[in-house]
């Protein structure tokens, strides 16, 4: 493979890892704290992307500016969903919550297809194709911006979780729910808050993705799967773990896209299975979130 392809591949992988970190981090906190696999994660991501699309298409709102809007909207939605639906059965066996979030995903995607039709759409602001080049390697502005923003949001999350009272409450709930309850943490609301954060981050990722790639109602599933793989690769325990996992995964994805384009997903999934078999706690992680 020529050097150009290699270098461009490396650059693409790095840029991609930022967005994927954002995709995975929301998923990771829900899994780590609530111990549920949120199969609707991708669907929320998709809705975030569409919010950006409609704001852009109907009102000309710059996609980056729509980020807070999509995140806030989905935060509220996520809060409601967790508080009034998932909380009802959250301590039930795996099958129940798995199927529940699966059903949510089905409903959201179906409604999206119904209202917005299944066609692919693109958010194409004027600066979409622009970028700069280092040598022959192209670095589109939007992807760079997405990378930076993702890392900023991830950093903010870390700060929130570590240095604020609410953040600590969330982590405590994840570590030992009874102790947390005894300390006065209100569990239903904390759970709802955690899920809402996860949803909001997913929506943010959706917004950023919509600027670089076409979107359609079924786009979410692939991202949920990627979030899985990243969390397993990097371990469920920590934010740096997720970043590492995302980086590793991005490389796998970009390079398998070059060598075997039609098997891209299969390769990623097989990596997942191998990691699960040989090192289920992931490359860097622990089994719970802290």
């Amino acid at each position, binding site marked *: 493979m020529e050097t150009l392809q290699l270098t461009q591949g490396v650059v693409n992988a790095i840029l991609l890892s930022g967005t994927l970190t954002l995709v995975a981090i929301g998923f990771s906190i829900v899994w780590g704290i609530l111990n549920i696999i949120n199969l609707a994660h991708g669907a929320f991501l998709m809705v975030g992307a569409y919010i950006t699309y409609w704001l852009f298409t109907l009102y000309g709102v710059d996609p980056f500016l729509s980020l807070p809007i999509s995140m806030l909207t989905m935060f509220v939605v996520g809060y409601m969903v967790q508080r009034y639906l998932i909380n009802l059965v959250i301590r039930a066996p795996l099958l129940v919550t798995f199927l529940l979030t699966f059903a949510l995903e089905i409903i959201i995607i179906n409604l999206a297809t119904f209202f917005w039709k299944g*066609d692919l759409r693109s958010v194409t602001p004027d600066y979409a*194709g622009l970028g700069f080049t280092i040598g022959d390697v192209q670095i589109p502005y939007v992807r760079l911006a997405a990378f930076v923003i993702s890392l900023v949001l991830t950093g903010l999350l870390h700060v929130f979780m570590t240095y604020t009272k609410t953040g600590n409450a969330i982590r405590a709930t994840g570590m030992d729910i009874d102790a947390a309850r005894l300390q006065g943490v209100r569990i239903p609301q904390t759970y709802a808050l955690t899920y809402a954060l996860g949803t909001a981050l997913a929506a943010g990722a959706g917004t950023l993705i919509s600027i670089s790639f*076409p979107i359609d109602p079924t786009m979410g599933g692939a991202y949920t799967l990627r979030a899985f793989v990243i969390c397993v690769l990097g371990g469920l325990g920590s934010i740096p773990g997720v970043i590492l996992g995302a980086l590793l995964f991005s490389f796998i994805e970009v390079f398998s*896209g070059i060598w075997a384009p039609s098997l891209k997903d299969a390769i990623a999934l097989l990596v997942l299975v191998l990691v699960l078999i040989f090192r289920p706690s992931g490359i860097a992680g622990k089994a719970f979130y802290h």
Partner: protein
Amino acid sequence: MPVESTEVEISNGAYRAVVNVVSFIPTHSKRSKEMSKRLLILIVVLLITVMALAACSKATTPAPAQEQTQEQTTEEKAPAGGEECKVVFGAAVSLTGKYAKEGEYVKNGYELYVEEINKQGGIPVGDKRCKVELKIYDDESNADRSAQLVEKLITEDKVTFLLGPYGSGNTFATTAIAEKYKVPMVEANGAATKIFNRGFKYSFAVLTPAPYYLRGIIDMALDKDPNLKTVAIVIENGAFALEVAQGAKDYAEEKGLDVVYFDKYAKAAKDVSSLITAMKSKNPDIVLGAGHLQDTILVMKQSKDLGLSPKVFGFSVGPTSPEFRKALGKDADYVVGAAQWTPELKYKSDDIFGTPQHFTELYKAKYGEIPPYQAAESAAALIAYQKAIEAAGSLDKDKVRDALAALDYDSFYGKLKFNEQGMNVYKPMAVMQNYTDGGLYTVWPKEAAVKEFLYPFVPWDQR
């Protein structure tokens, strides 16, 4: 109830079965009473539901909605004469789901034909005119559903003839059923040749099959510049696209071109830059793509990004849609796309529509937009039936089947003629081009073209 003795006698195994079946019953007789009562109710309900649904669907005037989701349409116009003869065409069409948009075009095409023919009293059969009715069910873009509904159409609704669904997968499923019951099916929307390589006698397709899709573009390019040498083909990993690509490759080689690149990308891929880069390194004269609208747009976008500028850019699907131009703006200029049919073709026929322009007029009047080719080919399927019925002089399924096999007719859609496998290899593919003035014009076949083919594709860096 003294069933024990008889049950025990049946077999030891049955006894053990019973014992295990009832294992979820607690031992107390009171609760077991409860249990058997509930179970009894459940079973009876199941049986009754099954019977009721079976009975309902036997009715000749069907209830509004039955087993599956349906959107039934029965179109009737008051017949001219007082004759009581009817031809019922049945179809399972994708009105919802993945192919909903295309399915709608198909339905529109069918309905437009039925409306027009019934204005004349119906299809001529012998010396009568038989009113035409349509029975359409929604198969939800699902192959299982399609198959079920076609069974229903044949065995319960007892339609006279079948029309095809949308999409190769669904068509696969339904042609087998048509063959089983020996009911002719003329379909207009499944172009994969695999469907027709199975020796079925009762299935016919009016549309040009997949391997022929890109022939028009190749012919047109070579006609304009016989010195073209190399072709690169980029393919979406899908049944239809693969056939298109293979057909294009074979034809290109037949014409003396060198296929320098031939590779696939994943369905609904979001990034094909590595393929574009690879093609660029081969410097092809012609780049052909087989896929769907979105990947075609993607290929164009990334070709611009990476600077791939062949002399001709042609795609099987995409350039003829308004979304293509909308998504790419000026970048769509010069790109050509294959088309089964366009409203501008200069065909002339004595069928009920006469010319593509007249069909377009009628379609626009009824549906408010320019007819897409799916609508035209769907109407064409019915025209094929009409001409076959006229030739056979009867509605007998086998006679009409034979008449279809022998059909050779020029319709507003093009030539309708089927080879031994039931495919219409006789109708040429048209080509449309996105012009620099923002319009989309038919540029091939020459006799039917509205404007001339603009050549060559102006390289990206010269725009």
